[in-house]
């Protein structure tokens, strides 16, 4: 597998422009526009020296509801890895553009708390395409190391809507929703605030007007915000080392009122986000403790 | 009497601007006492040369006067303040801060040798710039004649040069006095320290006062009305300075008796009836005047102020005898006869006060006033001669020597005479009758038993005859 080292985080805005280009009919025939490949390229993108900046971290924590502790939220490392996702999806031989991809699942494993004064190296690769009931899916696999120790791993599963394999349709288990412990009011500008704090300026999150061309009536909140907000709600009960897995169900249009439910047991934590009025499922997640690595 | 016109003009914004530009003297509007006011409005700083003997007395006086006080870091001052119940803050010139003082009091009694006079420099150098306008500086020393050691005598005598010079350079309507406190008279400094710190001494500067052992301060003294229960006679009380004197003594609680010649009966009665006092229409030079007064004051008179006086100016070459004699009768001889009669008749009790009114002319002399100056120098002589005699009876005698005081008399002077008289002093202005009256009230105070034989000028430290 080829490895490319980036000296700094790639700028996301041009990546989005590039990511959107394949939506223009015929553009993907151009050599620098993604969409020309048949499968996800075998490429590893690495950012060797990732440091934290208190101001950005504070802004992120505030919009997600985290306390600004010395240990950074595990979802924040995803934010740092995200430009690599975009860069990889912007490769010319990437089979399709990033715009239009649906983030369906995210799993993060925090092997130990990461202090904001640490320096990490982050690498991202993509898995092979595999079929999905509604199209094709693939994983962006990210890994963060402090020195030689893997301290964090993240797997984001993206879906490319299209011709799928209906036999793969997941039957959601009929389990009782975890009991509601909080109601959150998501204001209309939340997508823009999170976009500012995370750098993910996907137009579907910004304004109704920019979301419409991409098939959404209203702007929707980032799935990773919703996940982060859940972890912030659970901050006092999260173990030092854990794996948090969420499925993004229906998008949350903005503004919205949603409920957060949680159930803490010896096996871990089960949590869910639902529409406050209709109960529409937005997110299902679990936290399980994993063996902690020493610092 | 209000301020003279010039002082009013240069204290107005445009007038002040012009005066500054053309280098005219800029007299400060002097603070003057209003009843009910505290002794000092502003902080008083106390300093001392090491091993002085007045720290306790100064602290007690200021504590009693409820003054806002700071002291230097000298441990003896801190201890004395604590003992006196004086809640004094600290002033250390090296500590900076925007400190301003209304009064500076320095106990120089510890200075026993000329080499120690540098203590004056050490205390006043950093503090004198911090004195507010109408500020008060009082240096306390030991009367040179009361010292035993020649070196100490020399050093204490030297203080006078310091205070007189500082008075001339301090400016801003501030005054500087030297008070010699004889050993044993420490507890009698109260009235003097209060007077010299208060706005009552607005026009007194560069003076030397001596406090010597005498009648103790009444324990129940009311400083707002120190003459309560006393009877005071003021001659020449119908107008001008005399009117101010009788008003001031009445303000201080005395039952007042005003005296003037029958020609001025109307004016006199207006004054005394306003003050709830008595009026005596009498020519003091008449033969029976002493007898009449002795008879009038059967139950005694505590305070006698010989204010009545006249001028009969003429150079000696043109001076006829009657012009000389009639003045001498009014200004001096009648006073002596009245004193004698009242004293012989035991009309003045212990604690009594006789106060004369001398004049700058009596000290420095004045052209065209040989008769007047002679009489006024005679008043000084009267004070000097009678003080030791009266001391035995618990009575004191002192005199004021006014300089240029704004009265109808001075207003009538030709401008070439008036203006130099008005301006040639440390205050750059004339005094007011009230300034003379306040000084007399200080001598009259029941607390002033330590003041005997003093002649204090009320002249704004006139440059003449200094």
């Amino acid at each position, binding site marked *: 597998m080829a490895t490319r080292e980036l000296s700094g985080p790639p700028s996301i805005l041009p990546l989005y422009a590039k990511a959107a280009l394949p939506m223009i009919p015929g553009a993907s025939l151009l050599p620098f526009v993604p969409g020309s490949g048949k499968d996800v390229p075998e490429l590893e993108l690495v950012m060797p020296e990732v440091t934290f900046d208190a101001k950005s971290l504070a802004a992120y924590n505030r919009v997600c509801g985290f306390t600004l502790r010395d240990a950074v939220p595990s979802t924040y490392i995803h934010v740092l890895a995200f430009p690599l996702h975009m860069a990889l999806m912007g490769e010319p031989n990437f089979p399709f553009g990033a715009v239009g991809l649906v983030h369906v699942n995210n799993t993060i494993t925090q092997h130990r708390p990461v202090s904001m004064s640490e320096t990490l190296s982050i690498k991202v690769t993509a898995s092979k395409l595999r079929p999905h009931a509604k199209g094709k899916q693939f994983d962006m696999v990210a890994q963060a190391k402090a020195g030689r120790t893997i301290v964090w791993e993240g797997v984001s599963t993206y879906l490319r809507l299209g011709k799928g394999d209906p036999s793969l349709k997941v039957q959601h288990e009929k389990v009782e929703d975890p009991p509601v412990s909080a109601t959150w009011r998501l204001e209309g500008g939340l997508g823009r605030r999170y976009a500012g704090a995370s750098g993910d300026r996907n137009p579907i999150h910004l304004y109704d007007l920019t979301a419409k061309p991409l098939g959404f009536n209203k702007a929707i909140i980032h799935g990773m915000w919703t996940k982060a907000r859940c972890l912030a709600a659970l901050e*006092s009960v999260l173990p030092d080392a854990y794996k948090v897995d969420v499925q993004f169900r229906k998008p949350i249009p903005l503004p919205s009122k949603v409920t957060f439910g949680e159930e803490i047991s010896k096996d871990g934590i089960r949590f869910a986000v639902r529409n406050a009025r209709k109960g529409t499922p937005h997110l299902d997640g679990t936290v399980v403790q994993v063996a902690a690595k020493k610092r | 009497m209000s301020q003279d016109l010039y002082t009013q003009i240069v204290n107005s914004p445009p007038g002040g601007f012009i005066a500054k530009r053309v280098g005219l003297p800029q007299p400060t509007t002097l603070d003057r006492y209003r009843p009910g006011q505290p002794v000092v409005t502003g902080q008083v700083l106390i300093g001392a040369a090491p091993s002085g003997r007045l720290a306790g007395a100064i602290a007690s006086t200021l504590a009693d006067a409820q003054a806002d006080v700071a002291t230097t870091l000298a441990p003896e001052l801190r201890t004395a303040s604590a003992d006196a119940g004086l809640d004094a803050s600290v002033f250390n010139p090296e500590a900076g*801060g925007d400190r301003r003082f209304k009064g500076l009091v320095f106990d120089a009694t510890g200075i026993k040798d000329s080499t120690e006079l540098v203590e004056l420099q050490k205390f006043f150098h950093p503090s004198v710039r911090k004195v507010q306008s109408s500020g008060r500086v009082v240096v306390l020393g030991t009367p040179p004649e009361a010292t035993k050691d020649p070196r100490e005598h020399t050093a204490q005598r030297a203080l006078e040069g310091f205070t007189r010079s500082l008075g001339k350079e301090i400016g801003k309507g501030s005054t500087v006095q030297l008070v010699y406190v004889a050993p044993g008279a420490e507890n009698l400094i109260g009235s003097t320290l209060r007077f010299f710190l208060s706005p009552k001494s607005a026009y007194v500067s560069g003076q030397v006062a001596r406090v010597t052992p005498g009648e103790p301060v009444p324990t129940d003294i009311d400083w707002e009305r120190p003459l309560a229960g006393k009877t005071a006679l003021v001659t020449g009380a119908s107008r001008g300075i005399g009117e101010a004197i009788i008003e001031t003594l009445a303000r201080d609680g005395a039952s007042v008796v005003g005296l003037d010649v029958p020609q001025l009966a109307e004016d006199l009665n207006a004054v005394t009836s306003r003050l709830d006092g008595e009026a005596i229409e009498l020519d003091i030079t008449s033969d029976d005047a002493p007898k009449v007064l002795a008879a009038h004051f059967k139950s005694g008179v505590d305070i006698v102020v010989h204010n009545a006086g006249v001028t009969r100016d003429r150079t000696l070459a043109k001076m006829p005898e009657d012009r000389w004699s009639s003045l001498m009768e009014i200004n001096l001889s009648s006073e002596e006869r009245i004193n004698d009669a009242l004293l012989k008749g035991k009309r003045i009790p212990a604690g009594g006060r006789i106060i004369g009114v001398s004049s700058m002319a009596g000290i420095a002399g004045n052209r065209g006033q040989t008769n007047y100056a002679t009489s006024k120098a005679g008043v000084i002589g009267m004070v000097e001669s009678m003080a030791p005699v009266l001391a035995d009876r618990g009575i004191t005698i002192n005199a004021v020597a006014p300089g240029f005081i704004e009265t109808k008399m001075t207003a009538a002077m030709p401008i070439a005479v008036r203006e130099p008289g008005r301006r040639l002093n440390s205050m750059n202005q004339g005094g007011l009758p009230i300034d003379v009256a306040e000084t007399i009230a200080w001598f009259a105070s029941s607390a002033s038993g330590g003041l005997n034989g003093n002649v204090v000028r009320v002249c704004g430290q006139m440059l003449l005859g200094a």
Partner: protein
Amino acid sequence: MTPTVRRVAVVGGNRIPFARSNGPYAHASNSDMLAAALDGLIERYNLQGETLGEVVAGAVLKHPRDRDLTREVVLGSKLAPETPAYDVQQACGTGLETTIAVANKIALGQIDAGIAGGVDTTSDAPLALNDDLREVLLDANRIPDTAGRLKLLTRLRPGMIKPAIPANQEPRTGLSMGEHCAIMASEWGITREAQDELTIRSHNALAAAYDKGFQDDLLTPYLGLERDQNLRPGSTPEKLAKLKPVFGGPEGTMTAANSTPLSDGASVVLLASEEWAKARNLPILAYITEAQTAAIDHVHKREGLLMAPAYAMPTMLDRAGITLQDFDVYEIHEAFAAQVLCTLAAWEDPVFCKERLGRSAPLGSIDTEKLNINGGSLAAGHPFAATGGRIVAGLAKELSERGSGRGVISICAAAGQGVVAILESAGGAK
């Protein structure tokens, strides 16, 4: 019924390094910093899941949104959520006052263990709406109809946009704390040289404390800071003499060096009954044996704004039956070097002790070699409410290392208040 009074143990403390205003903690809120300090304490003393008697903390500059600042921080922490909490605010006295509040409950047997602390940020200070604007908006809220509300809008003026910034100013005198202290310095005759000397000593002592590892178990790094940002050891009188005065006018003696800078930080202290600490195998560094708060009238009687500790001390000493000289360690909060020196001068002064304290003799002087031996606020910085916790934990540890002895804390606070307390080594007072 007279309740039995129990001894109150200081188990330990934790704080985050103190940062200068708008420095590394510029974007951290009070709750962030208090949480960080609390996290470290929980970790150090294994308090995860513990239900404590109470957690009491506070902040001087507090956002309206932080209605229950301490309680919310507890809920976000690893302590059991059943741990009650409340906020206290007494200006710079907050940290010590919270300690006293918790200690008293422990002493009376109402609780067995608790955490006291404080936090302040001058970077993330609460800006209030301009009062005029606030009034218009509140009126608008009271008016039911839109037309009425629109009419109200005509009252809006551009100047109303200017926010009301909380000033470090005494409401009744209009003077800042520094200006008040400059007056005190002048009234007590405190020289620039003496202030600068105390400042240098403070920095050198704190640096030495770090160097010998004294601070290792008193703080946890936060946002990249491992030592107090303000710490500048090795300064010289010559260097400090070059600084311009910042308070007291051009002749003033107070500079940016001999005054504490605006700071951000948080501190917490774990207090417990002896039984509670022993049952958990936790150390007892010292006992809190006495405390006193006093206030003065800086408005009408013109007492120095920061002189209240000078009043609190003799009351406490009398109750304890000891003298000012009976201490092995003195911790006098260095809000300003001048404040410390004024306090010491006052205790030595016959006038102050007689006239203001009503005592026949001065309290006397102290051995300054025993003063702020591990550095003070001038070096560490002074996030108002966090200072008390820093001092309590530091003094307790110093007494514990000595094995015996007695220490005293004196903290001045805005609005004319002062708090003092006595700590005794677990090994005994002497």
